[in-house]
């Protein structure tokens, strides 16, 4: 590793676990199957079939990825602090932070770190009823873009609340999870209590949209229970306690 000195090491467990996994994911063919499938550039209605051999080839990797000059932001999450950066020339406040200002007038000026308050406003959001594999257990969740108070950009963050209880402009508090690993999932947003959805909210102004969404959410609860044994009650509790 050259001349660097390790200041803190929280990786030992994963390295041990990965050694075994990496041997499974090392490209060596693990089997095959023969299938009959469509063949050639045929016209519709004139499909032809052919036998193809499908080879099963795994590929697993563990990246050791530097978070660069914005490492302080992610270390801050572990410490329970929210940081942004500020350009000393034009005053733009970035959260997500940038180590250099992108305003052409500032000529890639290095920025300064500032601590930001753990609160902000919802700039926009979507309600996820399906997701990539890593987040299936989190369903249904709200993928939010929150403008942290004092920052000029919007931070991607999960909003932990009933999916029909989020709107643009809503005030939120940022909470830190108990167990933190220095990633964005260490934090989440919760709506500041006592707010009612405004009549202009694009989800709430249309009763049909809410009804339609609720009906689809039931499908997601069914999926969660079948696949992971997660019941709707457990999901509702998550919104109350902020758990994962």
């Amino acid at each position, binding site marked *: 590793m050259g001349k660097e000195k390790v200041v803190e090491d929280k990786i030992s467990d994963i390295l041990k676990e990965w050694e075994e996994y990496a041997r499974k994911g090392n490209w060596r063919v693990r089997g095959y199957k023969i299938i009959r499938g469509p063949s050639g550039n045929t016209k*519709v209605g004139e499909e032809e079939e052919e036998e193809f051999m499908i080879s099963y*080839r795994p590929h697993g990797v563990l990246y050791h990825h530097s978070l660069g000059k914005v490492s302080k932001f992610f270390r801050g999450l572990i410490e329970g602090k929210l940081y942004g950066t500020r350009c000393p020339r034009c005053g733009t406040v970035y959260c997500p932070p940038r180590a250099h200002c*992108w305003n052409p007038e500032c000529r890639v000026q290095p920025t300064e770190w500032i601590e930001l308050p753990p609160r902000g406003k919802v700039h926009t959001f979507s309600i996820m009823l399906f997701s990539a594999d*890593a987040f299936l257990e989190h369903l249904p969740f709200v993928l939010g873009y929150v403008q942290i108070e004092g920052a000029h950009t*919007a931070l991607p963050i999960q909003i932990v609340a009933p999916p029909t209880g989020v709107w*643009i402009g809503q005030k939120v508090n940022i909470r830190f999870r108990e167990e933190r690993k220095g990633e964005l999932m260490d934090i989440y947003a919760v709506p500041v209590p006592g707010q009612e959805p405004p009549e202009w909210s694009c989800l709430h102004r*249309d009763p049909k949209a809410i009804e339609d969404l609720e009906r689809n959410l039931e499908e997601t609860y069914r999926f969660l229970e079948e696949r992971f044994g997660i019941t709707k009650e457990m999901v509702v509790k998550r919104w109350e306690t902020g758990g994962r």
Partner: protein
Amino acid sequence: MTRVAVVGGGLFRPDRVRYEVAEEGVAEAYRMLLEDTPELDPRDIEFVQSSYFSDHLNQQLCMSWIVQDYIGQHRKPGYRVEAGGSTPLDAIINAYLMIKSGEYDLVLVVGWEWMSEVDTATTNEFIAAASDTDWDFTVGGYYNGYYAALEVRHMQLYGETIEDLGRLAVRNRNNAVHNPYSQWRSEHGTSYVTLEDYFRDRIVAWPYRRWNCALISEGAAVLLLASEKLASRYSDSPMWIKGVGLGTDSMRPGDRLVNWAYKGVYPEEEAIYPSFVEKPITPYPEMANFGFAREASRRAYNKAGISNPLRELDLAELFAPYDGVELCLYEDLGWCRRGEGKTLIREGVVMRDGELPCQLSGGLTAFAHPVGATSLLQTLFLYWELAGMIEEKFGDPTLQVSGAEKALLTGHGGTGCQGGVIIFSR
């Protein structure tokens, strides 16, 4: 400087899962071009421009080298471009610039994507690796979510409804049933669908249902581009490239709230903002519209001498991996004022019999979206449209716009991070 034309093309059916590998699929698409263009001697091709998006979907880097030698075009110059969803559009523009510059006279553009070697959730993850993996991706984001968040913002600012998104989904399907190469038709047959059917489909990321989202496809397409000197040798109906434009935007959509490149550039746009939503530093395009499309289209129109695109264009193939993108593009392409995108679908302007029909092919959500081939497929479709060949190619004249002369193609990657516009003319 020479003019540049698309003089032919071919495709490898992108409507179903494929077990031929990419180079074999490209070969079939190339064979279609050779069959349709007997005048083409493969030895006369001077440059091969390759287009594919993902290296990890197929566990293979430098696939363009495999493809170029497989079709017997090795030793000649050639390389790949890559820019997510913008890849095939950039490949066409690159080929155009090469010919325009006088460096080459005959360029073959080849594009493909094979997207089913890993399971669907993993495909989504691999595609999401084209977003910022330190930030947006880490909180459960993937493209369905990002685009849904952009649409929620646009919907909030400008008032389109979930019915409007449904109208687009239904229109795309009811066009695609007339396109024999469409994935929708292969999977669902030739009957029309209604708004009621749309509302029975599952929501994946509100406000988007599955029908609103781009397909995962496998397929290939090739295009032959020629200089003015050679165009008539290969085609009786060359499709001229009249103007191109390119543009970019920030990688993370959340950063567009303070976008110096746009600040104050469009003062007339700053007035169009509802009073109940807080205005960010940069009111355009922020997270609601596509700045790249505005940049790209203004340049392309200028080059093509178009002053009233809505009136002058006869049809358009848009890059709309999610239906709401179309409403934004109508605005960013200058077909209407900001916020009025919804009226173009409500008044039927962009329907099959409207003033400017869009997505006659079915688009990315009903035709196919094999990423590296998508804009090539759409261009080939436009070539057949402008040449009056739809009935010949599809065995069905329904999608033919009679007398079509001018068409627009736009493509982009990421959440509008990079993209462009091309104006074609008969």
